[in-house]
């Protein structure tokens, strides 16, 4: 266990826990960007540079901005603040803690300790592009189709239909 991993793990866990526990929704999204940037730094530490920078662009850039916009557009002017957590928050917390306990037990009792760290692989963006264009070309095309469908679907769902019914 090395020191950079501990620092990044603390940043990630504190950021995500704050994102799920704070009261103000905009503060939650700001804490979320810290946590997701920590995850991106973990990717960089593991040698997956391209995934790390994709994570920063997609999550810290796009998804966080999208969530902030959604929070601002759904901001209700009512003065009485509802409670932050649901009425059955004890049950939810117990379920999440139980899931973590089971996962940690499974990881701890597995035979992963025999693994040794292989030498750092040289992964260039050119290799990733080659793989995307040859071996993974069909998933790539399907992803383009999915993103187009999601774009059109999100616009159609969020569009205001009230003008048409008048």
């Amino acid at each position: 266990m090395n020191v950079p991993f501990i620092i990044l793990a603390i940043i990630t866990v504190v950021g995500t826990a704050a994102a799920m526990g704070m009261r103000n929704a905009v503060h939650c999204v700001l804490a979320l960007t810290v946590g997701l940037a920590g995850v991106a730094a973990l990717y960089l530490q593991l040698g997956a540079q391209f995934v790390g920078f994709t994570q920063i662009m997609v999550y810290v850039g796009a998804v966080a901005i999208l969530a902030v916009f959604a929070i601002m557009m759904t901001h209700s002017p009512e003065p009485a603040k509802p409670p932050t957590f649901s009425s059955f928050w004890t049950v939810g917390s117990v379920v999440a803690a139980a899931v973590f306990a089971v996962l940690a037990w499974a990881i701890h009792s597995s035979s992963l300790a025999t693994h040794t760290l292989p030498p750092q692989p040289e992964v260039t963006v050119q290799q990733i592009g080659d793989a995307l264009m040859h071996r993974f070309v069909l998933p790539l095309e399907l992803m383009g189709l999915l993103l187009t469908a999601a774009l059109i679907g999100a616009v159609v769902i969020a569009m205001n239909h009230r003008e048409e019914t008048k």
Partner: protein
Amino acid sequence: MNSLQNYLLLSSLLFSIGLAGALIRRNAILVLIGIELMLNAANLNLIAFWRFGPNPAALTGIMFAIFSISIAAAEAAVGLGIILAAYRHSKTTDLDRMNSLRG
């Protein structure tokens, strides 16, 4: 305890935080963010197994992570669109008060 186990423990902790948020938050947008956190935990697992696996030159873990990030982005866009449409009907994003499917 070696390094792979640390990464797996961290990602399971991340998954549990996301699950707790998705289960107990009342704001629908933050529930969606909790789901995004769970997807991130899965991505961290994929990258860790790729790095510690026997054949990292095959790039399989990286490809899985890239496609998973793309799907998560599409899911976030559609989910936030649905939340906006639901907000227009019920004037709230409080999940305890969004209890009817008909507007």
